[in-house]
């Protein structure tokens, strides 16, 4: 999954409407914070140690745990397992890893949707 970087240069300060709030100065965009946010997004988008790379790492970890649990399940039903807790513990770990990956994925999609819904 890649998130397109949002350029800080694309936005312009909103001109104050005359007569609406004459006492307040126009809101100046926080340039430093904006550049920082854009940098973080760019890093996530290019996948260099960002969200993309960590998501792929997470999926590989999950796949390894799932295949371990699957192998142990086969061993358990064929009677090659000395201790049933080996399988149940591995299955618990795989379940938790799946839940965490799904939670992270949901949060990432939510963040992407929030950005896409942003009023420009």
């Amino acid at each position, binding site marked *: 999954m890649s998130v397109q970087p949002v350029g800080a240069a694309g936005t312009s300060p909103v001109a104050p409407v005359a007569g609406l709030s004459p006492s307040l100065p126009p809101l100046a965009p926080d340039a430093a914070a904006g550049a920082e946010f854009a940098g973080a997004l760019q890093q996530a988008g290019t996948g260099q140690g960002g969200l993309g790379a960590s998501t792929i790492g997470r999926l590989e970890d999950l796949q390894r745990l799932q295949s371990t649990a699957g192998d142990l399940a086969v061993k358990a039903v064929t009677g090659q397992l000395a*201790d049933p*807790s*080996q399988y149940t*513990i*591995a299955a618990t770990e795989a379940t*938790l890893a799946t839940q*965490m990956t799904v939670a992270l994925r*949901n949060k990432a999609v939510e963040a992407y949707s929030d950005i896409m819904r942003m009023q420009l």
Partner: protein
Amino acid sequence: MTTFPVFGVAGSGVAVYRKWLDAVSDNISNINTVRRSDEPAFQARYVMARATQLEPGVGGVTVGGIELGSAEGRLVHQPDHPFADADGNVRLPDIDLGSQMAQLMMAQRGYQANLAVVDRARDAYSAAIQIGRNQ
């Protein structure tokens, strides 16, 4: 690096306590194994636990080895036993059933304690994953 190291550590504890249960079971099942007086007696098995690191920075336990009890056992006078020697003696293992029962309780409770750790860790991690979940 694993995400949930607790499961590996607790799992290694479960494995060690199960082997201890196996050893106690072996000792109790052979507590009346009779040998001839010129043969070594059945030797009790003792599981030696050893601390280890499953991976750097992550603890755990493993079976360091199995130690054997006395091969001398005890000589018991049973003249009518088929294995009895000229003096009417046979050799029985030097295993105390009371001590084995105490070890059985310790091994069982240790096994259960490690499984309780797995259970609590699962609850704790689940609660952490639930943070911020949409209603």
